[in-house]
């Protein structure tokens, strides 16, 4: 702003629109009318934001000649303070975080832990999203609703037709969800309303306390860690957290952790080993974050360190894939004693779109890539990568999140009981053996020498030395 002896009022476009100040505001610089202008603005019904923006634009230094009452000055100062507060980014715009400003007496009766959790049910029920293969179901549902409405309107009894249609709906649903193809399972795994990590946690734990930070400068929102109890037994929970709507997704970076997230997870895992908590990890990520900041701070190194350290933790680890399992980003918290997958979740080495773009050279081949790469739970059990598939309720986990969580809880506790019987050394051996056996190689068949012409042949002349044998 140029320094002039007479002030100018710059009104932002938003302020103008929302408060109808067009009549009040003007950009003329007659000094005599400026005070009148200010009082006119003060008296008009304007919001906090607008008045504050305007107050910031006033050059108070040049207003020596104006008389502002002490009350107005105080008013503007309060408004200015409030603007500074709102300028600082709060993650959820949640007035109640980190703790409510005022506690009622009834609030202090139960456990204080729920107050420390920022994860609350969404204020508005999200709009239903229909996947392409669910469209026939949607049509039947529409017909049922139509008939019900006509029944209400006319008062006639259509219960027979309604029951018939309902029966048809249930049958079709069972059929559809009983035989999902890999492409359909992938779309269910990526469903925007699929229960996230924290939703599962709040359904299965009796107590939950989220812990934060990597103690090295960052608290990555994409990975959530904490301790909780299931049936009275304490565990360490670590998982990728997706957002339930666009705003949350942006805050959580779409569950794509950076190196700070993996370092936070490692710190928590070491903490769990130190104190004796078994570790439960939940994988739900499209992949690790591919950004400049992540690369500069050692994304590959962070994941590699996690992989190596997880094989030395002397507590049981169970990993569950609850949504998408994206390559290295998933494996970074996924080296476990037992691997579980929800029925409609997927675990891939490269996303089908990326694979199609590289191998088929066109992104349209993504369905073909999905079928070929064998990424669904049942296919991975056959490949001996996954230990168990946890059944989801009919309609997918997003249809009935509570049942899905209970199925998950039952499977986890069953496997945990078996693992708790092992002593730490056997546990480490068991974990190592689980991954040691994964891999399909062909040996013992003498290869065509043409295929080995660029290999350095043996030339050691150690007397009596045979080729090294593994004991």
């Amino acid at each position, binding site marked *: 702003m140029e320094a002039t002896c007479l002030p100018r009022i710059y009104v932002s476009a938003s302020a103008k629109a929302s408060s109808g100040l067009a009549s009040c505001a003007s950009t003329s610089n007659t000094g005599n009318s400026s005070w009148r202008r200010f009082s006119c603005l003060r008296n008009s019904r304007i919001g906090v934001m607008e008045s504050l923006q305007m107050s910031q634009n006033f050059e108070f230094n040049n207003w020596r000649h104006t008389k502002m009452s002490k009350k107005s000055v105080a008013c503007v100062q309060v408004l200015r303070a409030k603007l500074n507060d709102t300028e600082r980014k709060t993650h959820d715009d949640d007035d109640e975080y980190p703790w409510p400003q005022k506690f009622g007496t009834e609030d202090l009766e139960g456990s204080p832990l729920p107050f420390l959790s920022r994860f609350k049910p969404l204020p508005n029920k999200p709009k239903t999203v229909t996947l392409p293969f669910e469209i026939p179901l949607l049509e039947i549902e529409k017909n049922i609703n139509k008939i019900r409405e006509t029944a209400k309107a006319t008062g006639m009894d259509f219960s027979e037709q309604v029951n018939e249609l309902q029966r048809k709906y249930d049958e079709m649903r069972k059929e559809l969800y009983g035989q999902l193809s890999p492409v359909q399972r992938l779309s269910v795994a990526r469903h925007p309303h699929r229960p996230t990590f924290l939703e599962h946690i709040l359904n299965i734990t009796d107590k939950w306390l989220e812990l934060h930070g990597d103690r090295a400068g960052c608290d990555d929102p994409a990975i959530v860690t904490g301790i909780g109890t299931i049936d009275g037994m304490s565990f360490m929970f670590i998982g990728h957290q997706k957002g339930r709507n666009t705003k949350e997704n942006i805050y959580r970076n779409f569950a794509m952790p950076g190196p700070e997230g993996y370092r936070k997870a490692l710190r928590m895992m070491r903490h769990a080993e130190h104190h004796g908590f078994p570790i439960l990890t939940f994988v739900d990520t499209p992949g690790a974050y*591919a950004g400049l900041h992540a690369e500069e701070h050692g994304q590959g190194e962070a994941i590699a360190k996690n992989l190596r350290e997880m094989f030395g933790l002397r507590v049981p680890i169970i990993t569950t894939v609850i949504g998408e399992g994206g390559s290295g980003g998933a494996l970074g918290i996924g080296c476990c004693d037992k691997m579980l997958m929800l029925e409609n979740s997927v675990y891939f080495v490269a996303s089908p779109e990326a694979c199609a773009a590289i191998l088929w050279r066109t992104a349209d081949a993504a369905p073909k890539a999905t079928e070929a790469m064998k990424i669904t739970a049942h296919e991975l059990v056959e490949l001996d990568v996954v230990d168990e598939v946890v059944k989801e309720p009919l309609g997918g986990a997003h249809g009935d999140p509570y049942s899905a969580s209970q199925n998950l809880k039952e499977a986890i506790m069953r496997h945990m009981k078996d693992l708790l019987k092992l002593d730490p050394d056997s546990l480490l051996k068991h974990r190592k053996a689980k991954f040691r056996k994964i891999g399909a190689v062909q040996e013992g068949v003498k*290869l065509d020498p043409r295929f080995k012409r660029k290999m350095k042949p043996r030339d050691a002349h150690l007397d009596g030395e045979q080729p090294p044998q593994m004991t």
Partner: protein
Amino acid sequence: MSVRKWLEDKQKFGGLIEAFFEEAVRNSIAHENDKQIILSENNNDLWARCENCGNMLHIKFSKQNKSVCEERGNHLSMDSMERIEPSIDPNTWIPLDEDTISKDVLSFCDEESYENRLIRSQEKTGLPEAVQTGIGYSNGTLIAPGVMDFQFMGGSMGSAVGEKITRLIEYATQKLLPLVLVCASGGARMQEGTVSLMQMAKISSALHYYQVQKKLLYISILTYPTTGGVTASFGMLGDIIIAESKAYIAFAGKRVIEETLGQKVPDGFQLAEALFENGLLDLIVPRILIKGVLSEISDLYSSVPYKKN
């Protein structure tokens, strides 16, 4: 400055004049072995072009110089045989798992079936898989090197690569040898799906026993290019991480980053020098010094006064 040198400077052909002289000498003396080698290779392989300055390098002289361009020291890519040959003392090499190759576990077929692709790569490159492992003496110390090769299906890590490297690590653990892995890879092998992803975990598990429990020395050498799953597993787990000059070392490739950010990635962003500035590497060593540096390092580590259990 001699006339020869002046000609070389003018025409920017490194070693060309020497090559002509050498050819002339060879033709007159007729060394049969040399002739056969040169005649059997394709004409294209006689000359290599430096990507940095466009300098033409005759293959014999570039090999003497370890495929480093004389103009500005740009390191050209080398295959695994070229790396092992000069680093290992003569008559000391014992290869491991020569006949281990990948199986088509998913019956994968994109534009071509995975089996056919494997056979075609094996014929073209003369290697059964993307890594060569073995043991040998280097400057008098017995080491266990594993060298990856980018020419075989882009150096991608599949079951066979994972198995060979894991067995090398297990052998080195048993015999208490220092481990050296030269990494050159485009990532995990997509044709083997999640099985190839688990190789990362398998190798890291073997490395845990080797490094953390047995406290042995593992040196990883990152070359052009080292990306994806290898960077996120054994590439960055070395006790000492050495990179070659201007090696491209990344977790996510340039195109993926640009698509995520929608911005252009700055030049030189994921090169070894940039990672060095960010504290992710220990050393950048010119290729000609690597053998000496490795023996000095193993010497330093074996002269510790405090004996471990």
